[in-house]
């Protein structure tokens, strides 16, 4: 092996080394990142969020602005709002899990909650859970105006922290949510608009871009 002259090396051999290197590269990626995330998951979640925002808008009789409506926050409305939020979270998680399983089948990979998937779940849900509890605390305390920016900020943090364990492009969605969340914290009275853009439009847009780039490659 060592004595073989390099110049006379067969093309077939270099091709073999090339394909080995490619395989090694895929293997390294596959073992350290969860790559069965479906591009339809953010699309579905975005559409659900837009529907929810529309529902909340109806609930408040067409106003887009929750903060100055403190006096309009009747008990029944708050209950409906929290119920819708809970339903939305459950639907989005269910859709993402279901679509990921379909994606795993499509990729022909074994459906397994492996180390990479566990790392992704932990790094995504830890910031999200902390943010969720904090939002509830704000909401209970009557700080309605800040709730949407806190939700956006923690969602952005969760995405950035999760991006190390799945497609790295996820971090760009995270940056966008963070910028929007910060902007929201300085603007008063447009909570629902910011929320709808961040959770609805941004997710939807990211999903469409994700789908387009995946199909190209």
């Amino acid at each position, binding site marked *: 092996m060592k004595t073989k002259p390099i110049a006379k090396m067969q093309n077939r051999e270099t091709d073999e080394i090339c394909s080995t290197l490619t395989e090694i590269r895929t293997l*390294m990626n596959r073992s350290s990142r969860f790559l069965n995330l479906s591009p339809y998951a953010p699309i579905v979640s975005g559409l659900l969020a837009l529907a929810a925002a529309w529902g909340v808008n109806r609930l408040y009789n067409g106003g887009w602005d929750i903060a100055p409506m403190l006096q309009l926050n009747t008990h029944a409305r708050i209950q409906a709002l929290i119920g819708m939020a809970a339903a939305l979270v459950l639907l989005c998680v269910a859709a993402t899990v279901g679509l990921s399983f379909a994606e795993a089948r499509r990729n022909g990979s074994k459906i397994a909650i492996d180390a990479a998937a566990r790392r992704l779940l932990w790094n995504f849900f830890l910031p999200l859970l902390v943010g969720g509890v904090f939002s509830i605390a704000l909401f209970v305390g009557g700080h309605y105006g800040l709730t949407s920016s806190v939700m956006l900020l923690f969602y952005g943090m969760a995405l950035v922290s999760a991006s190390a364990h799945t497609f790295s492009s996820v971090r760009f969605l995270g940056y966008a949510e963070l910028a929007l969340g910060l902007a929201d914290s300085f603007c008063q009275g447009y909570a629902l608009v910011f929320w709808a853009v961040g959770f609805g439009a941004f997710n939807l847009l990211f999903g469409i871009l994700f789908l387009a780039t995946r199909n190209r490659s």
Partner: protein
Amino acid sequence: MNLQLEHIDKTLESKVRLGIMAVLTVNESLDFKSLRTLLNLTDGNLVTHTRTLENAGYIVSSKQFVGRIPNTAYRATEAGREAFRRHLLALEQLIEAATKGSGR
């Protein structure tokens, strides 16, 4: 030609062993089952290759018991990471030299 052929590592010439090293360099540690699924190997096959790598000092294993079932976890050593890096570099140089040599 200034090729560092001595960096072509005999231990890593096997595709399976190269694969094991690749996976272990990007992960802190992996257990037997994950390695087997990732590389699509049989138990016996994986044991043989991990033993070779252990003997070369490229990986270390630690056996734990989950209930009564033994669970072996593997980690790449510093020497193993260095050997893997050098081997890949040598392969790259080989390709470079060969593609130049054949005028491609």
